[in-house]
């Protein structure tokens, strides 16, 4: 096997967290190499106008996504079933190429609520140990909000996030999210303007005594130069945001925030078309010696490194840990082991609000995140869950991200799926429909986990990752409760008609419908090596020169989108590596 000259740090995957780590470790003076399986991609020429505003190519066929023909996952609902492959995109979408999913995300940029990070302790203390079912495996992150705050902020300032603070140093701010944890500073940019749908939603929510605020968006509301000196331009509500690259240099992505600086660092190198097969360990299995990858010519290459950062996205992180034999695989029968433990997802619902022709919603005026209004009154532990019998919650959102007709056109309930009646309804609804939705948490359970599939393989002959997942009662109850609250707001918006999509008790997880790409867990962080794979600095308990970044670290899923927290945790881990680990390589926390 070909052997490359050693480097100080190798990064597996060059998406959001790989780019952050690359910059941080290069700044620390290390010789850094990033290995990315995909191609180099940049705003120009790859996302330039008009080629990028092609709904069929990008939104539907998924030209920027991981080619499933080469690698996918398998799925089953329960531990005794045979899993089948995820053959076509539906429920979630994997990134590929430089920038990863950071290229084609929406930019909905959230922080966790303080109690989310100490969730198990908080729930036990407020509601008692018997409040949650015995098979629910909620845990604390091992890091608290106050210590993480500067790193959450650092990521927002990198991205030029546009929003309005609701809590500055403990003082509640009019027009922001009053339920959020305290911020040291306001957002780097003011919020984007509201779309009309968002205005209708916010007015109705306010009327009902709720606390609407503009969605924090990593779509820039004005020209902005970030702390690395990279410049973003104002977002123009192009309506081709999630699933697309941004042609306006407005959406925060590795390309628009980090790469122009990082790619010029002499001690940083990127090798594309390099698919990592596994992390290599020494004979004792307690030290990583580097990684093995397949290069563009299809040859296996050994890359020695002192430090390995696994940054390949949540699912791929779990798979690489299993393929490399780092950490004990989780076993649902005994509830022991850590790799694959606590896989969770997101519970969504949505309500379409249909108006008469005199209400011009103009759905095509939309941004991935900006221009939407949010209500956070029913998320995290912002209300007393005692009477409701569930934990967790959701934020409500009102507005739209675009009006792309193949994917985003809705017709009133009862409309046939085709024929003259469908066409008439499509014509009548398109300009006059807006959406309200809920974006909810999912807890972790003993029987929901990830492991290697015994049957199906990828293009390199390696086993696929297998998902064992279905909904539990807590989530059905949560979604019913928050969707009822959302429906009250929709009714106050006075549409002609509305239609609800909500998962009812007994509905199985349906992998055909896009829900979110907020898959979490499998390599979780915590303070006990018997129930977590990583310590509070994202460092493997078992192999201390391996760090794993991404939502794979979440012990259960929040009601928020993950990337604000993912970015914050990555900076937090990078700081620990730079200030402590590099001086004394070894475990940062004693097991």
């Amino acid at each position, binding site marked *: 096997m070909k052997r490359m000259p050693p480097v100080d740090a190798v990064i597996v995957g060059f998406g959001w967290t790989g780019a952050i780590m690359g910059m941080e470790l290069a700044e620390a003076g290390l010789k850094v190499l990033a290995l990315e399986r995909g191609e180099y991609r940049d*705003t*120009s020429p790859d996302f*330039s*106008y*008009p*080629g990028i*505003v*092609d*709904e*069929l190519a990008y939104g*539907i*066929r998924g030209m920027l996504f991981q080619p*499933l*023909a080469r690698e996918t996952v398998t*799925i*089953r*609902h329960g531990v005794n079933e*045979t899993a*089948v*492959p*995820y*053959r*076509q995109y*539906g429920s979630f979408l994997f990134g590929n190429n430089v920038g990863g999913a950071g290229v084609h995300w929406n930019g909905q940029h959230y922080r966790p609520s303080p109690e989310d990070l100490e969730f198990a302790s908080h729930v036990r203390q407020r509601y008692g140990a018997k409040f949650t079912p015995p098979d629910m495996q909620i845990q604390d992150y091992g890091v608290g909000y106050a210590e993480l705050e500067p790193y959450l902020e650092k990521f927002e300032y990198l991205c030029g996030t546009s929003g309005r603070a609701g809590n500055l140093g403990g003082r509640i701010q009019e027009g922001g999210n009053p339920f959020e944890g305290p911020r040291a500073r306001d957002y780097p940019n003011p919020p*984007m*303007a509201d779309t*009309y749908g968002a*205005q209708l939603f916010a007015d109705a929510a306010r009327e009902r005594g709720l606390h609407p605020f503009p969605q924090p968006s990593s779509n820039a509301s004005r020209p902005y130069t970030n702390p690395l000196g*990279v410049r973003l*331009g104002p977002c*123009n*509500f*192009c309506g081709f945001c999630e699933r697309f690259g941004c*042609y306006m*240099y407005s959406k925060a992505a590795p390309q628009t925030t980090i790469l122009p600086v990082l790619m010029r660092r002499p001690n940083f190198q990127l090798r594309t078309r390099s698919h990592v097969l596994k992390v290599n360990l020494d004979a004792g299995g307690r030290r990583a010696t580097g990684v093995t990858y397949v290069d563009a010519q299809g040859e296996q290459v050994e890359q020695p490194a002192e430090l390995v950062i696994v940054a390949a996205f949540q699912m791929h992180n779990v798979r690489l840990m299993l393929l490399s034999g780092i950490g004990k695989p989780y076993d649902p029968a005994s509830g022991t082991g850590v790799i694959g433990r606590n896989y969770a997802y997101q519970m969504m619902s949505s309500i379409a609000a249909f108006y008469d022709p005199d*209400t*011009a919603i*103009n759905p*095509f*005026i939309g941004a991935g995140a900006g221009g939407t209004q949010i209500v956070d009154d029913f998320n995290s532990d912002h209300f007393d869950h005692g009477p409701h019998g569930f934990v967790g919650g959701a934020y409500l959102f009102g507005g739209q991200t675009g*009006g792309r*007709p193949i994917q985003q*056109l809705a017709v009133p309930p009862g409309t046939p*799926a*085709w*024929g*003259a009646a*469908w*066409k*008439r309804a*499509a*014509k009548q609804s*398109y*300009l006059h429909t807006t959406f309200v939705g809920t974006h909810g948490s999912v807890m972790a359970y003993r029987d929901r986990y990830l492991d290697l599939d015994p*049957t*199906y393989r990828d293009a390199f002959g390696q086993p696929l990752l297998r998902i064992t997942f279905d909904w539990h009662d807590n989530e059905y109850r949560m979604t019913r409760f928050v969707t009822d609250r959302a429906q009250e707001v929709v009714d106050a918006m006075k549409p002609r008609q509305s239609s609800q999509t909500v998962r009812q008790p007994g509905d*199985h*997880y349906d*992998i*055909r419908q896009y829900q979110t790409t907020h898959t979490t867990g499998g390599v979780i962080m915590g303070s006990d090596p018997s129930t977590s794979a990583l310590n509070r600095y994202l460092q493997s308990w078992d192999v201390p020169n391996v760090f794993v970044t991404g939502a794979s670290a979440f012990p259960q899923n929040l009601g928020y989108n993950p990337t604000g927290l993912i970015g914050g945790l990555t900076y937090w881990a990078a700081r620990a590596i730079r200030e402590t680990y590099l001086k004394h390589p070894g475990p940062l926390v004693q097991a």
Partner: protein
Amino acid sequence: MPSEPPASRARREFLRRSLVAAPALGLFGGAAALGGAHAAAPATAYAPRYFTTAEWAFVQAAVDRLIPADAEGPGALELGVAEFLDRQMDDAYGRGELWYMQGPFHPEAAPTLGYQLRFTPRELYRAGIKAVDDWCGRQHGKPFAELAPDQRDEVLRQLEGGAIELDGVPAKAFFAQLLTNTKEGYFADPMYGGNKGMGSWKMIGFPGARADFMDWSEQPGKPYPLGPVSIKGARA
């Protein structure tokens, strides 16, 4: 990066050029589509590359009923959706290269676990069309394309509901594929062969590839006055 992102300069240049070079369009718009239950004439004499003669007749006859022409706006046939389908079949998508196609296959798996057939899209069309034509031959003595419009609607409804047992192909899966691709062709950019003259975009009010609403974000609730542009710069 200069103070004005290159993207917005490129975009302005694009719109300027497209103004000068606006090709003749709108020939196949709504006006041509009046005529109730009658099938509208196909937009162009396109010669299919994948579909056989019999399949081509089926595809035209089917999309014409899935999205028929009437006074509300253009139908799928006149917008070139049959051509779109044929071109998709000849593409990586049609060949199944975007899907994970390794066995073993478990078509009996719960529908919520997603598509589990061994057919690529083009194989599903080939097998599905033959099976429907065979069924129509047994029931009506002629292939699908030769049935009257209301008979075709009835067959499509039965396929949709899984009320027809087809040879070797699940009726519902074939129908779902056909309907999904028909709507794609109806609404996708015209460069893929469907949505000729941006007929569907004009009908619903989608401005297509404009993708710049900087001024409009400040004017909520006001009707948007501009018609669509296509990726290649046509206006309608």
